[in-house]
């Protein structure tokens, strides 16, 4: 699965404004809503679902990255977005360091396999130090998209 298969191109945030975990998640969900991918009435519910998942264990998995996610009945297909913070967001990460790259995933509830494949794809890219370095240097949504599609082209599909 490629990142470009599910990342919403016009929902990416090259300069996250939020400086807290809660605000960062809200900002990214709002971006997906504004792009037309989420129902207006479900925005708060989705934020709550993501925060509930965070309570089970931070998705800040270290090395400055976080993968906040949830499954929700209101989405019909897997969608995602990428946020880049240039100041760092405290995320209760495993290594207690702030996060600078956030990849949000929202999946339908009845497709765990697709969710896992998306996580696998995201992880493959995020473990690449060069990819993360370049992502943190982007300053526009277009630059992020170019980086994602180029990275997709270098990875074996599944």
């Amino acid at each position, binding site marked *: 699965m490629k990142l470009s298969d599910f990342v919403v191109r016009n929902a990416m945030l090259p300069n996250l404004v939020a400086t807290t975990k809660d605000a960062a998640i809200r900002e990214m969900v709002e971006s997906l809503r504004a792009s037309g991918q989420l129902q207006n009435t479900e925005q708060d519910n989705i934020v709550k679902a993501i925060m509930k998942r965070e309570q089970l264990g931070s998705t800040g998995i*270290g*090395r400055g990255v976080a993968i906040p996610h949830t499954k929700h009945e209101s989405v019909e297909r897997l969608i995602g977005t990428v946020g880049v913070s240039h100041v760092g967001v405290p995320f209760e990460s495993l290594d207690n360091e702030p996060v600078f790259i956030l990849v949000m995933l929202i999946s339908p509830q009845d497709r765990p396999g697709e969710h896992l494949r998306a996580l696998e794809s995201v992880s493959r890219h995020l473990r690449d130090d060069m990819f993360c370095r370049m992502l943190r240097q982007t300053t526009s949504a277009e630059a992020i998209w170019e980086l994602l599609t180029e990275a997709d082209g270098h990875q074996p599909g599944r």
Partner: protein
Amino acid sequence: MSGKQDSDNLTQTSAPLLISSAWRGAVTGPTIMKEIVLQRTVVICNPDGLHIRPAAALAEASRRFQSQVSLLYGERRVDGRRVLDVITLGVEPGHEIVLEVNGPDAEEALDVLAAILASATPPLPGEPHSDPKAE
């Protein structure tokens, strides 16, 4: 090799397999440590597969031991302490994975980490994992 496990026979972990055991001479100081390499095949019972939560639980628990922790899935081997590497394995529910532990506390680490991998619901951060021997 990984594969689908009969859901009626969720023997979640196999008996430990001793790969090697060797005394390692002291590098510094008088202490001589015994290195043990153990493997155990584990069936992933989490309905979402080996995703972020169990991978993070495994990484957190692994840091409490001196031993090196590896996961083997098909032809791939990854460091169990690296969450992203573990997730890239894409292990689906019902599939088998081999947990390998190498170090002086391998026996204890193997039991604890295998239980986390096999659990349908991994422990919360900071939550003590249950000792399988106590059950």
